[in-house]
């Protein structure tokens, strides 16, 4: 488990100051985390304007429930904010897909368009892999995608992911393992398709 960063420490100070009545202190949390929250939400709901609205919604919920932030349980504000944002996104997805069960939302594969790779320049292999990964991620079930992004893009610890996703660490490990397996298969399949196409 990682120690607290300077940002983590200032987050906790901002929470205390806000609770003491200085609402302006809350702005520090917004400025520091809105980009992360927006990106995580954009991965979940895919429409940027919706992700933006949900970001605002998540911060407002965080403000309203600031007293409930348990420093001992969460250690840092970041996973708590991600948890609130995730719940907001899931509420939104439940509403827009009210005909679909929650279990389906959690396990469905949102986009089924084929992964394509059009750039054939020589030094582009790595960029191409990133692009393939990016597209393959959009094919992953929501929970796998979220676990993968939090761990490998934003480098959350297992503990932080567990808190953000309200899962235990073993479940997080399982989600990550399955996410990588699926991504590997998706990318391998694309690789074979690319070879067939002469890439």
């Amino acid at each position, binding site marked *: 488990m990682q120690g607290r960063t300077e940002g983590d420490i200032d987050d906790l100070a901002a929470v205390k100051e806000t609770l003491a009545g200085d609402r302006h202190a809350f702005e520090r949390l917004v400025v520091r985390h809105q980009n992360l929250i927006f990106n995580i939400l954009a991965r979940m709901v895919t429409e940027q304007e919706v992700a933006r609205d949900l*970001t605002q919604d998540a911060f407002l919920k965080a403000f309203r429930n600031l007293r409930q932030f348990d420093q001992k349980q969460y250690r840092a504000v970041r996973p708590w904010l991600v948890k609130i944002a995730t719940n907001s996104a899931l509420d939104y997805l439940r509403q827009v897909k009210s005909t679909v069960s929650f279990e389906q939302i959690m396990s469905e594969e949102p986009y089924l368009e084929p992964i394509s790779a059009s750039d054939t320049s020589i030094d582009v292999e790595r960029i191409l892999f990133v692009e393939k990964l990016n597209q393959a991620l959009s094919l992953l079930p929501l929970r796998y995608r979220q676990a993968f992004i939090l761990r490998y893009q934003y*480098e959350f610890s297992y503990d932080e992911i567990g808190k953000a996703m309200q899962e235990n660490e073993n479940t997080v490990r399982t989600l990550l393992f399955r996410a990588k397996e699926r991504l590997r298969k998706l990318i391998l399949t694309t690789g074979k398709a690319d070879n067939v196409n002469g890439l």
Partner: protein
Amino acid sequence: MSMVCNKIKEDLDSLFDQIVDTSLSGADAASLSLPAICQAHLSHCQNCRDYHSANLMFFEAASTLPTLAVPRHEELTASIMQAVMAEKGSDNYLAAQGAIPVHAGASARKHDLWLLSTSCLAFATMTAYGSTLDESFCNITAWLISLLLLLALKPLIEKATEKEVPA
């Protein structure tokens, strides 16, 4: 897949976790080398080699995945803070939890309304009964009656003033 491969993959996973975690503390991920037993296995097992290289590629690629710029990010911050500042009742909620004092302005206005109502009722009672009573008893009786009236009406007045003052 053999039992050996499963065990090797577990070892590779924990090494991979160390790489991800140490990058957080800025340590050189490359300094973490594979245990000899893993190296020996990887030298003859294509399946585990693929697994390990996929892990490394994922990590490297994931850390360079494109991040979206928040559209109109300064506007978003301002809009969130505007909503936070406009939140009604949150201070009362926090105060109820012992975090901050009740909103001073609202409290003062409520107190003023209470004083005003008290004075009006006392004055009205005194005027109504003053003319019918002996002058020496006038003030005492009128004020006593008004006090009793006020005590009886206090809950109603409080309810009315609560509606006038935003929480």
